[in-house]
């Protein structure tokens, strides 16, 4: 790909195709669908963090007037064989089955154990109250310390620790280890060795749209499911597998999605709605309340990280070692593996090792959250790096540049890096006027660097040429942040036509080939490549048609700026896309192209942030007063939406650093399951978020795209915490930095 290539659409900022619908209220999200005769489904949830279900009596609920169906785990198929478990992709299908409906025991406060469908949501609510459940409470464990204590209660008596030979039953679901070199040797070479321990609290993705779906199941088993998710193919596959259905019998129609951030890559209500619909013979709609979203969907839970860094007096890192404990909820499955892989990823280390433990606790099953596992790991590493810079009295960006990874560096997680933009990102941050701007009293500045992989995975796309010469692009990815625009722009660029001539449709599971979730920062990268391939197929057909009309070899026909031209013949009138489209029926039939691929060549992403805070020393309140995010996007197809990812991720990370945390009582009940008490940042909490898009093109993508969605949540926590240190002189190592914690830290700096 030539650096000099001039683009007509790539890099511009057109209005997204779905924009008008979304500013006029016409766009349909998960809860916006309704059908005649529709019932309302509701879920009964556990009032215990851990209990044996002695009995469930649904008789009174079943006979309440207006109730059409009641289900419990008995209505679900049996659990899977060991072999079938492995087919669940990122999810263990048995865990998923037991999470959507408890069997025998409830494992966290809010765990589903029955569901009803009734003619109104009020009657459904009343019916839930009539279900009689007898529980035998069992001892629970709520944090890493309790879960790993010798002789403590076990959540699953039959589970041993994966990755440990001859492990007995344990609440540690998995142990992982990775690295290279000999860290003992590395620390021996160091002039400074700093070892610190960090904790983070459970937080929620906080998408504004609660989980919602509508299911209609016919008596022959054919089922249609409308739902909001990050991937309707994933919803189809998980739901059908749990219910023992053929995938072809379940059509999932994607609603617009009101935010996901990783949290809508799994199922909760969907199989229940299908079962209720099947049982009642009526369509069933289910919508979680906000309280249910907090209590029973998948947050990211607490972590404890011990990190040790060895540095020579000239600033070169000699060794890094980290032990990470991540809570995974009642079934395990935390992001600790990704934490281990990313914790040291931004820097070159001759000796590096990370060890991770996936810890089961009686809390909801954790789900993915934007760059899963990485923000907490970056919190640990990047605050220690800041401490090293202070100790060595060197500029913290210079110290990072000194150790930053580049092409050919052996990554801490294994392979050698290809072309990456870590150094360029840090240099752009250092050169930004913000970095050298003066600070006022009680203010401090922090910087931090962050890394995330980006996913490739499977994508399908279709391109249909319409008889008027307009183009319809079919994608299998729900549009969560403007991807219809980026896909349309790439198609317009390929065809050499106006952006307004391209429409993008998010097609349902019956209408487009299999496509993995909108996640892992992959849609513009991977599905974009499928769109480019499908467009190439259409242009190949167009050239053939032009060749047939001109009676020349197809190789002689070029496709330039939206028209077919005969090579070396400037006299010949070109054939426009419009004309070829209009005549398609007479030259061989409709023209369309399909492409499907497993995307190769992900371009890894780096971001670096600058945060200025002002600390109110009377109250402990921390205010972010200026913020700049720098990131290598490879190439920004639609810069506004790239900036939007950077700004949104930064503010989400600021919330994680300063406000957000799940508060459980001693019984494991969530005490703040609402936006009033689980406080995400509001407009008056944050300043404008300045952005700098660095473009070090990914050599493996036709336009140089790297994924951009997840990197922006990695640097904010340490950037904020380093800034608070600069303002207060206190190194905080436990999140969030709420006013009481900040005050306490200032009163007893050594204890913080």
């Amino acid at each position, binding site marked *: 790909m030539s650096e000099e290539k001039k683009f007509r659409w790539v890099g511009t900022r057109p209005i997204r195709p779905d924009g008008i619908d979304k500013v006029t209220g016409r766009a349909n999200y998960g809860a916006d669908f309704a059908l005649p005769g529709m019932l309302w489904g509701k879920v009964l949830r556990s009032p215990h963090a851990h209990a044996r279900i002695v009995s469930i009596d649904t008789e009174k609920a079943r006979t309440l007037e207006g109730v059409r169906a009641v289900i419990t785990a008995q209505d679900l198929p049996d659990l899977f064989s060991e072999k079938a478990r*492995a087919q669940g992709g*990122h999810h263990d299908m048995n865990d998923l089955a037991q999470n959507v409906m408890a069997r025998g025991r409830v494992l966290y406060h809010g765990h589903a154990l029955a569901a009803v469908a009734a003619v109104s949501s009020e009657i459904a609510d009343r019916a839930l109250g009539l279900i009689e459940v007898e529980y035998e409470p069992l001892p629970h464990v709520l944090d890493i310390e309790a879960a790993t204590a010798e002789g403590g209660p076990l959540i699953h008596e039959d589970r041993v620790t994966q*990755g440990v*030979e001859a492990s007995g039953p344990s609440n540690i679901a998995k*142990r*992982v*280890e*990775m*690295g290279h070199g000999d860290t003992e040797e590395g620390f021996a070479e160091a002039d400074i060795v700093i070892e610190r321990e960090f904790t983070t609290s459970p937080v929620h*993705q906080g998408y504004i749209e609660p989980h919602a779906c509508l299911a209609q199941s016919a008596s022959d088993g054919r089922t249609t499911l409308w739902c909001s998710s990050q991937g309707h193919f994933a919803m189809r596959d998980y739901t059908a597998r749990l219910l023992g259905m053929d995938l072809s019998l379940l059509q999932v129609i994607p609603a617009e999605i009101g935010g996901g*951030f*990783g*949290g809508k*890559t799994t199922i909760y209500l969907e199989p229940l709605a299908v079962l209720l619909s099947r049982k009642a013979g009526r369509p069933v709609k289910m919508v979680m309340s906000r309280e249910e979203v907090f209590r029973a969907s998948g947050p990211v839970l607490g972590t404890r990280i011990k990190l040790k860094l060895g540095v020579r007096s000239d600033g070169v890192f000699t060794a890094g070692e980290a032990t990470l404990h991540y809570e995974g909820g009642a079934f395990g499955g935390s992001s600790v*593996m*990704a934490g281990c*892989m990313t914790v040291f990823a931004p820097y070159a280390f001759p000796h590096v090792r990370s060890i991770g433990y996936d810890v089961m606790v009686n809390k909801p099953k954790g789900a*993915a*959250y*934007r*760059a*899963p596992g990485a923000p907490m790991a970056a919190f640990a590493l990047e605050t220690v790096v800041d401490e090293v810079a202070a100790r060595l009295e060197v500029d913290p960006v210079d110290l990072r540049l000194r150790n930053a990874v580049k092409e050919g560096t052996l990554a801490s*997680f*294994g*392979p*050698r*890096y*290809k072309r990456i933009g870590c150094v360029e990102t840090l240099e752009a941050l250092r050169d930004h006027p913000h970095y050298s701007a003066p600070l006022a009293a009680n203010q401090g500045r922090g910087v931090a660097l962050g890394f*995330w*992989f*980006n*996913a*490739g*995975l499977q994508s399908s796309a279709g391109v249909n040429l319409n008889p008027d010469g307009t183009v319809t692009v079919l994608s299998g990815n729900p549009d969560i942040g403007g991807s219809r625009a980026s896909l349309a722009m790439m198609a317009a660029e390929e065809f050499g036509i106006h952006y307004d001539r391209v429409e993008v449709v998010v097609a349902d599971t019956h209408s487009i080939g299999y496509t993995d*979730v909108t*996640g*892992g*920062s*992959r849609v513009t990268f991977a599905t974009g490549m499928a769109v480019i391939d499908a467009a190439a197929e259409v242009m190949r057909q167009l050239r053939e048609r032009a060749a047939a009309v001109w009676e020349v070899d197809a190789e002689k026909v070029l496709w330039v700026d939206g028209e077919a031209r005969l090579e070396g013949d400037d006299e010949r009138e070109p054939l426009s896309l419009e004309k070829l489209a209009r005549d398609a029926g007479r030259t061989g039939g409709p023209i369309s192209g399909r492409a499907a691929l*497993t995307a*190769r*060549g*992900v371009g890894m992403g780096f971001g670096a942030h600058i945060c200025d805070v002002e600390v109110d020393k009377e109250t402990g309140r921390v205010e972010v007063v200026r913020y700049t995010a720098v990131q290598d996007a490879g190439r920004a197809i639609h810069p506004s939406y790239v900036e939007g990812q950077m700004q949104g991720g930064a503010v989400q990370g600021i919330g994680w650093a300063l406000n957000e945390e799940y508060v459980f009582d001693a019984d494991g009940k969530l005490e703040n399951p609402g936006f009033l008490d689980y406080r995400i940042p509001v407009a008056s909490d944050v300043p404008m978020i300045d952005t700098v898009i660095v473009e070090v093109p990914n050599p*493996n993508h036709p336009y140089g795209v790297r*994924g951009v969605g*997840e990197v922006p949540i990695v640097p904010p926590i340490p950037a904020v915490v380093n800034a608070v240190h600069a303002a207060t002189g206190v190194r905080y190592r436990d999140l969030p930095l709420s006013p009481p914690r900040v005050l306490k830290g200032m009163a007893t700096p050594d204890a913080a």
Partner: protein
Amino acid sequence: MARVVLPQVLAERAGGATEHEVPGRSVRALLAALDERFPGLAEALSGKVAVAIDGEIHSDPLLEPVEEDSEVYFIPRVGGG
């Protein structure tokens, strides 16, 4: 021979070492060769790992080509959020 690096947790199943010289011109061929040397290892690696071939990560490869002097890392598979 490609230079293959296995995850630390599988070292015990591969004669105590993570690094191996393995013949084969595709991921499938490498897996077959590894499994011949260390029975059961291919099963342990299947479906759970990504493979980085000369720095490029493939999430679930089978037929991906491998060069004579490639560096091949079997690493944990990471999805995303």
